[in-house]
């Protein structure tokens, strides 16, 4: 399984810093070097070393759950997560949404399915290559309404952040052509996001009377025949939404990332089996990059619906069982339900990377 262990596989620097974070980094570096310079000109009194050391100890070395640093962090997160900031899905940039349906029978025929996946991979690579740095986001959603019959709604949304490239419209039009080759493509105006009227740890109530529970997909099956999604989504099921947010990397960034990833996995692993597993994974990645693929960051979310708290809990249970069957691991995002559901609507396309849900 690919596991989601933040900070290990993808170090924070590589994950990307927000504007405020990079500003703080620069300010910190500037202040630090200024202090160092002035200390070299006029050595400070001895007690300043004591004061700086004590502060550093409080900030960095305070152990245990009751530490001031932890208290401050958790307090800030509570404050931050109390409400859903509008900015989470309203990042400035160009955005376009389409409804996309592959040709009938594509998923059932192994050859046609493989060809479809190849074409989709090429579209992702193409999208990643449109800018010098990573930033283009492609968000794909699938929504099922199940009654006597099942209705499927599939959307694909492209978000080009403001300032990434000079002519985002050109990227959108190029990608329109790429996606049109995948199946039936039609422009779509997404429905407005339903407002949250009530919340609990495990669910949120929406103003259209539905109760939702959303999970992040944190692990995917080790290997499939390529029919994971048809098996998961076409099985006779209930009302549910699944969305994947792709952030393709440009070629150069992909290669550097693969290099660091390989180095990190080789560095501190004593377990021989784990080492070899990493080796095979990096080898596969290496092969794919040689073949012209690039790397893509993906975030996936699953939402289940119910018409009461009990029914949404039941739906959540059933979704967990289905996920187990397909070797998918779900993280039900406790305490974050009041805004997690937006990730399975087309509105989730412009979510900033690293945003706290």
């Amino acid at each position, binding site marked *: 399984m*690919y596991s989601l262990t933040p900070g290990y596989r993808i170090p924070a620097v590589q994950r990307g810093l927000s504007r405020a974070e990079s500003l703080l980094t620069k300010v910190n570096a500037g202040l630090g070097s200024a202090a160092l310079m002035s200390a070299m000109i006029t050595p400070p009194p001895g007690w300043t070393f004591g004061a700086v050391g004590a502060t550093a100890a409080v900030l960095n070395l305070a152990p245990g759950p009751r530490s001031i640093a932890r208290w401050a962090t958790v307090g800030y997160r509570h404050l931050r997560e109390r409400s859903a900031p509008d900015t989470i899905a309203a990042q400035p940039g160009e955005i376009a949404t389409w409804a996309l349906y592959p040709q009938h029978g594509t998923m059932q025929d192994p050859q046609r399915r493989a060809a479809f996946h190849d074409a*989709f991979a090429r579209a992702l690579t193409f999208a990643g290559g449109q800018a010098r740095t990573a930033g283009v986001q492609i968000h794909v959603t*699938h929504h099922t309404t199940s009654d006597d019959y099942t209705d*499927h709604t599939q959307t694909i949304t492209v978000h080009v952040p403001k300032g990434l490239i000079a002519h985002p419209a050109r990227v959108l039009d190029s990608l329109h052509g790429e996606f049109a080759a995948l199946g*039936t493509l039609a422009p779509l105006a997404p429905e407005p996001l339903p407002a949250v009227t009530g919340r609990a740890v495990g669910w949120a109530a929406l103003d259209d009377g539905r109760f939702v529970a959303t999970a992040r997909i944190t692990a995917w099956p080790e290997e499939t025949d390529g029919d994971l999604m048809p098996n998961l989504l076409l099985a006779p099921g209930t009302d549910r939404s699944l969305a994947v947010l792709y952030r393709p990397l440009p070629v150069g960034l992909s290669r550097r990332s693969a290099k660091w990833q390989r180095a990190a996995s080789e560095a501190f692993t004593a377990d021989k089996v784990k080492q070899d597993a990493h080796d095979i994974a990096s080898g596969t990645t290496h092969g794919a990059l040689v073949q012209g693929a690039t790397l893509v960051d993906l975030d996936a979310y699953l939402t289940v619906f119910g018409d009461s708290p009990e029914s949404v809990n039941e739906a959540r249970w059933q979704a967990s069982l289905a996920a187990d069957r397909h070797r998918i691991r779900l993280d039900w995002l406790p305490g974050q339900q009041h805004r997690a559901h937006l990730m399975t609507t087309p509105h989730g396309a412009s979510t900033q990377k690293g945003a706290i849900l």
Partner: protein
Amino acid sequence: MIRLPTTHAAITAPLVAANTRFPGIPVGRSLLDGRAFHLSPVQTSAVLLPSTNSLALGGLGSGKSTTAKARIRREIIEHGHQAVVIDSFGEDNSGEWAPLVRSLGGRVIEAGTFTLNPVSTLFPPEVREQLVRSLILAVEPGALTHQATHALQHALNHPKATSLNGLVDALISPEDGRWPAAKLTEWGEGAAIGLSRYTEGSLRGLFDGPEASLPETDLPILSFDFSHLDRNSPAIPSLMAAVSCWAEHVWLRQSTAVHRHLVLEEAWQILLSPATSELIQRLLKNSRKAGLSLDVLMHTLSDLGEGRARDLARLCEIAHVGRLNPEEAALVGALLGLPAWAIERISSLGPGQAVWKVGPGYVDIVQTVLSDEEAALTDTSARRRMAQQALAVEQDSTAPETTVAGPIGETGLDVDASDDLYAPFTTADDSWDWESLPPNVIGVTGRFDLARHERIIQAAMDGRFSEAAELAAVYEREDITAHGLNSAQALAWWETRAQVADLRGEPGQAAQLRATVARMGNDNGVRLSPDGIAYDAESGDRLPSDL
């Protein structure tokens, strides 16, 4: 967040369902993605579906007929289409389509009860000739030489040729035309011999009627019921020829419906005969122009032979294939050009499920969805259920007497779904009164008039067997009229007749009569225990033993 190569990440794209959708009536639910499957071929764009003919394949119990019936019913009700059904498979002495046809206000024409006159003046002359030629070809494939054709043409112009008998006379003793009569006689011999099968031979009674009536053309549905005929009967090709001629030249020209369907049930026997398959091929090719869809139902294509099956598969743009064994599935799949994944699933389909191919590229697996009413109208397993019930009755009747005496079954106001609710009533009186209703509708079983039973037994004991039999028939008819066909009173006469047969020294017939009563089920008011004692099922009262 997970970082993967794009080639690996692509399989996580949740783009799995298509949105292709055909216009028209609902058929069922797709088993591939759960969406509703609609299809009215005639409403579909001609670019997508150049022809509207459909082919239904599938083994026994695969649900191909049920699907076809439901489709025709919905087309008739929702879009006002018309249909003609050639029904050659059924049970209980009536065609499979009979209940459906009656429920839609159509007409069932049973082969043998309807005499068609192929040289009727209602047909235009060229149709007459065509029809007579196909009748001759159906029985004597080599009879129509150039000379014979001319002799036939000459005879058809004879004023006597207004019925088949007249035509044969005109063939045998022609008058001089362009050619001398002697030559015409010689040429016409083969044709006359062929036609004599219909006037004097085994196929008498089908085409030699003098009158000129034809079936109505304005009914929503019309069924030609060939189920009485043997499957290999030579009459079937001839009847098919007549029906297809009628359809082509009378029905299609006169009917005003927006679209017409010709349904061929068990079509292999029609398509195997060279004479009729040619007619069907012509209908298939002209169907688009004529506003006609042919719906061909058969078990599999392998019966037809390679070339003909290929032709049929090419002409039918719509095909649905129910469960077949793997070998046949592979063959059918190759002929229809189905993808491998669909062929694999043909052998494991359940009842009512079929692989559908619409046009060149659309393949789906669809579960036909039926309403309760449709399920009742299309049910074909009544005979099997009856056999199961009969077994249950026999097991019941071997049970000890104490269990028999209790009240059995519900008083049946609920209707068996397999009953032909639209069958014409056997009692032909229009007056309505309580007495003419079957007893289970009233809810109280009437008492038995034992004196009449005793009188008959007495007559039989005295040796007056014929008088006893006549009296029994008269009384039984009275009881059927008064209480209903399946009433206890009517059934009691079976037992009396069995006793008469016993007295006459015919135990075999008696046993047969008793077995028939036992097989009629336990919901009829009378139960017979092994010792011949009758019980009233509702009250559990023991009926008099001399009954």
